[in-house]
């Protein structure tokens, strides 16, 4: 186990290195740059822009800049935002809560709803409910999230006036109820796709369990349907779900990005877009690294958890 972990860790570090280098190269080699936003300011001159660029070290070769950045990253210094003048970790941290709140709520909705639909579909396989949910899941996976968000805004904010069209809370209010009313639409929109994914996987997973011997044995022993359902089926079908949850981690950033844009949610997705717009490379790189790490950690955790829970799998 320890050897396996070490080798996985080593591989992950190499991966991070590749990811960071590609990301850095793409960002720094591209035309434009963090100073172009000042080009239209009255009194700004090329001379001044060049001077600032040299002060910021932007005129050095890309490889030098990269290793400078990397050597700081290794000792825990993620750099300083060009835009804020604050440390990248601080900038990311200050947007973390909004994203976690949104993603957390969406995950709770999708896991509970998705699992229930999945289990029920599997137990009533081939029935009308199963079939409807299959079609629903496929359609849900086909709707562009942002468009679904727009339509939701059109109906619930503009026409019915029930829910606010954007933001996380009303300035000066900020009560729990206020947060919830702002949260409902983006969280539901975001959960839609995940409900579809979870219900499909849960259905397959449950089907696999239902067909296994121990469930038949349990039923044969005379255990009631409900007890079999909760003790044996649900528990065992959740094991593969942990893997899925691990693999879903990277979606935290990617999925939030578009939803946060549509609902002007002050989270990391918006931060990424804003930072990209201002060519705030340190923050963009920080988010890229953070999400790449999430992916790797997610994969690793999923593998380990499954190994711990399921005695049939051994990690060598």
């Amino acid at each position, binding site marked *: 186990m320890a050897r396996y972990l070490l080798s996985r860790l080593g591989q992950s570090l190499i991966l991070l290195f590749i990811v960071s280098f590609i990301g850095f190269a793409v960002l720094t080699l591209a035309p434009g740059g963090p100073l172009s936003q000042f080009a239209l300011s009255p009194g700004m001159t090329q001379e001044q822009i060049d001077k600032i660029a040299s002060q910021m070290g932007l005129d050095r070769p890309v490889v030098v800049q990269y290793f400078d950045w990397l050597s700081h990253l290794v000792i825990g210094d993620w750099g300083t935002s060009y835009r804020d003048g604050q440390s990248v970790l601080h900038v990311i941290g200050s947007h973390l809560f909004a994203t976690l709140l949104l993603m957390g709520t969406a995950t709770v909705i999708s896991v509970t709803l998705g699992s229930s639909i999945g289990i029920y579909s599997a137990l009533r396989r081939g029935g009308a409910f199963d079939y409807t949910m299959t079609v629903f899941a496929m359609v849900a996976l086909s709707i562009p999230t942002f468009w679904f968000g727009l339509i939701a805004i059109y109906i619930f904010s503009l026409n019915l006036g029930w829910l606010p069209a954007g933001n996380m809370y009303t300035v000066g209010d900020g009560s729990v109820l206020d947060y919830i009313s702002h949260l409902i639409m983006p969280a539901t929109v975001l959960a839609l796709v995940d409900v579809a994914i979870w219900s499909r996987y849960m259905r397959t997973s449950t089907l696999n369990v239902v067909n296994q011997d121990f469930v038949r044995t349990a039923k044969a022993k005379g255990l009631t349907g409900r007890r079999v359902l909760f003790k044996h089926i649900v528990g065992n079908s959740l094991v593969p779900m942990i893997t899925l949850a691990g693999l879903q981690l990277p979606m935290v950033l990617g999925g939030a990005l578009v939803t946060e844009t549509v609902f002007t949610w002050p*989270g990391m997705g918006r931060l990424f877009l804003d930072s990209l717009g201002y060519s705030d490379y340190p923050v963009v790189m920080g988010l890229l690294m953070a999400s790449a790490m999430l992916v790797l950690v997610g994969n690793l955790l999923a593998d380990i958890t499954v190994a711990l829970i399921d005695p049939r799998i051994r990690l060598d």
Partner: protein
Amino acid sequence: MTDEKKNSAHLNRRQALMMMGAAGAALMTPMAIGRDKAFAANADATGQLVLAFSQEPTVFNPLMPHIEVDEGLYYAVYDTLFDFDPDGEFFPILAAEVPTVANGGISADGLNWTLKLKEGVTWHDGTPFTSEDVKFSLELTVDPDFRSFRSTGYKLMQDITVVSDTELTWTMSEPFAPMAAILASTYIVPKHVFDGVEDKNATILNTAPIGTGPFKFKNRMAGDHIELEANADYHMDGPFLKTLIIKYVPDLNVMYTQFKSGDIDVIGLQYITPDHLAEAEGLEGKEVTVAGTATFESIGLNMTRPQFQEKAVRQALYLAIDKTSIIDALYYGVPTPTETYMPQQSYYYNDDLPTHEFNIEKANALLDEAGWEMGSDGIRTKDGVRLYFSNSTTAGNHLREQAQQFIQQTFAMIGVEMTIKNFPPAVMWGDYWMNSEFDTVVVGLNTLAGADPDTSDYFMSTMSPALGGSGQNTFAYQNPKVDELLTAGAQNFVPEERKAIYEEMQAVIREDLPFLPMFQYAVVKGWKDDVTGPTPNVNNRIDSWNVRDWKRT
């Protein structure tokens, strides 16, 4: 619930109308703007006001590179020495009086300056404000280790000498009339926070700014808002608000919706989109006004391109722009058509320039006459040069992209093919713009520093990076007459004489057409009718220039 809300809004509206009268009077008499604390004891600062911007202020050190929206915060937290009122007249803030040739603050040759400061001003942390802070701020702008926003003007200042706590002097290496305007946008920072700091780019000002302004920085919720509280010891009349919240709403529709619903009290930068003007004007309990800005929209031509060497071509292109339709239909009539770069509110505006007309026939005739022959592909050619070029602007600026496509269609009618090649802002305004790598652009420019008419950076032939210069003459425009006028104007301190110089220059540029002027921007501002104080000021980049005067009733 809803009825109650409406009723109270109605009451407020009536009260507010009375208050508006008072605010209007303030606008008429510049004397009333930015009054000294001595004039009136500070009324109790009460209430909260939410001012919304569609971009997020993030750079809190005002001497570092920043964008327009950051100044929205600076006016609340920091002070300048003096500033422009809406009429383009200076009024003192930290200065006891604005230095002029008349009061002896500036010597007749414009070289020796004496600046007197107010007494008894303190920084937000209680430290007294002195002339050392001013000297430090001015010198910081040219400090080689400091990431300074600009050095134009400052680098001409020599021997900055502290005479006393409230007086300092300096000499200019050459007479430079725009210097006062540059000082009017120079926020003074506290010297003491730089004491013992190794990296001047990384002081506490970046995160928790300390100024002398009407509001103290309280906290910032990144990506969302900044909270400021009243500075009880402010040295001028005001502030009249206990709490000022600068809210960041990245989407203009959401911002407008929140303004409508009352979550936002004053709608700031990027404002109400023109398509909402009619609706906004009918809103209960809101004041909505269209205000001109100093930014003018134009199609800039890269004058080094062979297509644009002939004046006839440039004039034909100008004739083929249906300005009226663009302004009336696409921009809902909000902006004002213009023939020049100078805002119409300016003292230096030349109102005698020839008026544009949209005339396809005339444009075609002009090109025929000049020998540009229509090819079989519908594009005109002369001496191997085809009237084919690209047009670029910021991708994602919808109104501008619409205008672009419309112009594309009318240009095709005169045998000109214009392709659209837009870029994200970081690419568009990088080398592509600065080094004149474009064919043509649609750009909104503010070429002025405050109310000063000098535009050497933009139109002097030596200021083009593409031609080896270092300024912002990205159109690569070269005209010896313009160079001569700009030089004369920058060394002249008599407004009447300068007016003649700059009016002549506008006529020359209108004749040359290095850019095809479209309109002077106007924006739709709005605030709740129980708010008084917000006043359009074409000489400042952002609304909060007089936030010290804002009140709620």
